[in-house]
């Protein structure tokens, strides 16, 4: 048995940082076989317990070792509709890989020895994409006369749509933006999730009969009561986390200070990196900083660096984070990729004030140095500002990537929909039903900011409840 993990092929850092093409090239057949062969096929596998949707990892890896790639694909599809997407964006080192028996225990994330489950998932997913075979339908009698509305076409909505469509339920999906995919489209850059993968998955849903209505804002064009009154038997709300948080410090409204949402939406959804061919502009600086340490911060920084390089500006992008490297919440792979590409990390710093010129554009950022104190509610050590340690960082663009709050566009106009103090929708954890009967919810609008796969886990639970409800109502 091969002991060492099979390294994944990637485009070389100096090359890839000059474009927006996919960074990770994936395993070929030989590499996948070799990595799959490392799996111990544990009698009582732990890996699946680390997966928010409970993929039968042992089985799908076994099928790969048997060269039954279609079988591997279908094994994943039993639990996860979008293996090609999740194989690319899942923080596996915090989930299935961390639970893998080969991973060293006691670390905050998986050690490199853990099976590269995500890369194998991607391999099987991409195989399934290239060799389409119809997936089994679990039709419940009479369900095809009922229709369900899904609000929001992000990971939760797409997943729920797939589950319902497979059960023969008519799904109509409403999306407020002009393009489908939610955060997968406006948030995650194409170099992490190529658009053809996302388009393929959306197209397969269309082929399954899912109807998409973009530019339609539920809460504006129609409200929840109207949808229920128009013959929708159930509604699933996958509204997402909407409103960007800002630091609340002086000078934050200076020109060229972006929320990560704005910066990434301009670049990813509106293709500002193709300006002027695409008409939406984004400003590019000589010295760009990104504040935050999550995946969104990594995405923003790597987009910033690519914009600099593609515009002939010598790359100079820095991530500022208030804790130390081990606490960075981003996927380890993204942190490594960011470093390889030349992103600088200034750790243990806390921004205090943005400073601008007379035209109102940002020129620098005043920060305080921090040290780590006792663990806080999140279990991570708390950053404590060191008085008098002020210093300034020169910058002409700043991107604030410190998180999002609940999207309120629907909840504000739906008083019967109970929300918590964060504005997130309250649901029954088992059924995912909200305070309104036959209205379900999942994804970031329920749990606050989470991962794609967590959103999908919630969407699956909701879909299961909806299917049961619809079948019983017959």
């Amino acid at each position, binding site marked *: 048995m091969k002991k060492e993990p099979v390294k994944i092929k990637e485009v070389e850092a100096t090359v890839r940082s000059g474009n927006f093409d996919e960074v990770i090239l994936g395993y070929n057949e030989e590499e996948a076989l070799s990595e799959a062969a490392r799996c111990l096929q544990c009698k009582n596998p732990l890996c699946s317990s680390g997966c928010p949707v409970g993929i039968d990892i042992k089985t799908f890896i076994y099928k790969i070792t048997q060269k039954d790639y279609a079988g591997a694909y279908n094994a994943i599809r039993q639990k996860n509709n979008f293996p090609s997407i999740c194989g690319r964006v899942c923080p596996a080192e915090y989930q299935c890989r961390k639970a893998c028996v080969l991973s060293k225990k006691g670390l905050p994330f998986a050690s490199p020895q853990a099976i590269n489950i995500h890369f194998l998932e991607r391999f099987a997913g991409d195989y399934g994409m290239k060799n389409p075979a119809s997936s089994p339908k679990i039709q419940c009698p009479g369900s095809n006369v009922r229709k369900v509305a899904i609000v929001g076409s992000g990971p939760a909505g797409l997943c729920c749509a797939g589950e319902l469509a497979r059960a023969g339920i008519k799904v109509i999906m409403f999306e*407020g933006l002009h393009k489908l995919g939610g955060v997968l489209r406006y948030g995650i850059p194409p170099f992490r999730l190529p658009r053809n993968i996302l388009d393929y998955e959306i197209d397969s849903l269309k082929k399954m009969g899912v109807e998409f209505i973009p530019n339609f804002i539920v809460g504006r064009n129609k409200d929840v009561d109207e949808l229920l009154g128009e013959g929708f038997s159930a509604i699933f709300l996958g509204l997402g986390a909407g409103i960007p948080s800002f630091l609340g410090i002086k000078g934050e409204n200076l020109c060229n200070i972006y929320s990560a949402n704005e910066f990434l939406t301009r670049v990813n959804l509106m293709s500002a990196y193709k300006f002027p061919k695409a008409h939406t502009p984004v400003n590019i600086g000589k010295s760009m900083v990104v504040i935050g340490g999550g995946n969104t911060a990594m995405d923003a920084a790597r987009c910033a660096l690519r914009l600099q390089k593609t515009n002939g500006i010598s790359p100079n992008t820095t991530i500022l984070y208030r804790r130390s490297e081990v606490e960075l919440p981003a996927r380890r792979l993204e942190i490594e990729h960011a470093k390889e590409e030349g992103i600088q990390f200034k750790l243990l710093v806390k921004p205090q004030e943005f400073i601008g010129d007379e035209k*109102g554009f940002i020129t620098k950022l005043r920060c305080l140095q921090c040290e780590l104190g006792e663990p806080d509610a999140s279990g991570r050590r708390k950053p404590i500002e060191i008085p008098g340690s002020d210093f300034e960082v020169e910058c002409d663009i700043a991107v604030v990537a410190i998180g999002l709050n609940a999207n309120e566009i629907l909840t504000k106009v739906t008083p019967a929909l109970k929300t918590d103090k964060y504005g997130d929708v309250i649901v029954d954890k088992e059924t995912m039903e909200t305070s309104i009967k036959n209205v379900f919810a999942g994804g970031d609008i329920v749990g606050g900011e989470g991962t794609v796969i967590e959103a999908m886990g919630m969407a699956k639970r909701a879909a299961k409840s909806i299917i049961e409800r619809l079948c019983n109502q017959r």
Partner: protein
Amino acid sequence: MSTKILEKKLLADVSGSKIVQIKLAAKDVAVKAKAGQFVVLMASEEGERIPLTIADIDENKTTINIIFQEAGFTTRLLGKLEPGDSLYALAGPLGHPTEIHENEDVIIVGGGVGIAEIYPVARAFKVKGNHVTTILGARNKELLILEEELRKVSDNFYITTDDGSYGKKGFVTDILKDLLAKRESYNLVYAVGPIPMMRKVSETTKPFNVKTLVSLNALMVDATGMCGCCRVSVGGKTRFSCVDGPEFNAHEVNWDELIKRNKIYCDKEQHICKLSLK
């Protein structure tokens, strides 16, 4: 899925300054839209998302009118579209509707293409039995739009032009100041126009302590609260024009900041305009 242009009307065309009105087949918007709200639209698939106020809704609630001045790249692109053509995308209604009280004494001030935005508001006030005084301002007679429409919904009606070619020579604020000085009973001043005009209106009404609302034209991307591009400082707090506005208390708006933020992409705009002329 795309939105068809049903009619197009050139409201003004003076030395390259075109003001265009288009009627769109937009039932989903029209059914819900109220005075003061806006839509966000994309002229083409490569286009920007730009917010434009809903200038009118037809009686059957199937179409909306939007009015824009061909000022930048996207509005010029929009101006090239003809009846039968389609917009790539249209979403709305967005923003809070104007709060319309009853039996009040209101002054509505519109400047330039901002007149398009005050029309539905003035009409809504009139319908609810308010006493409506309207003041319109334009650079010259040719650039004055919707005069007849607004005259019909106004109890008192004034026009000013910068060059004196029509109405009173001068600015809307000259008349506004006279009115406020003469009578104390005004409950509200509502103003839409170029930023310097709205700011001037705000400065004019402040000493009289009259509630003054302005509809701000901040830059936007998604226009549903997701990006924060449109943030403005109002009363020392950061607000998003798209979901918290677009109307705000004029006396609390940080005008300097708004003016600066609206110039963030000046260089890019010049660049893309130059390229498109080639």
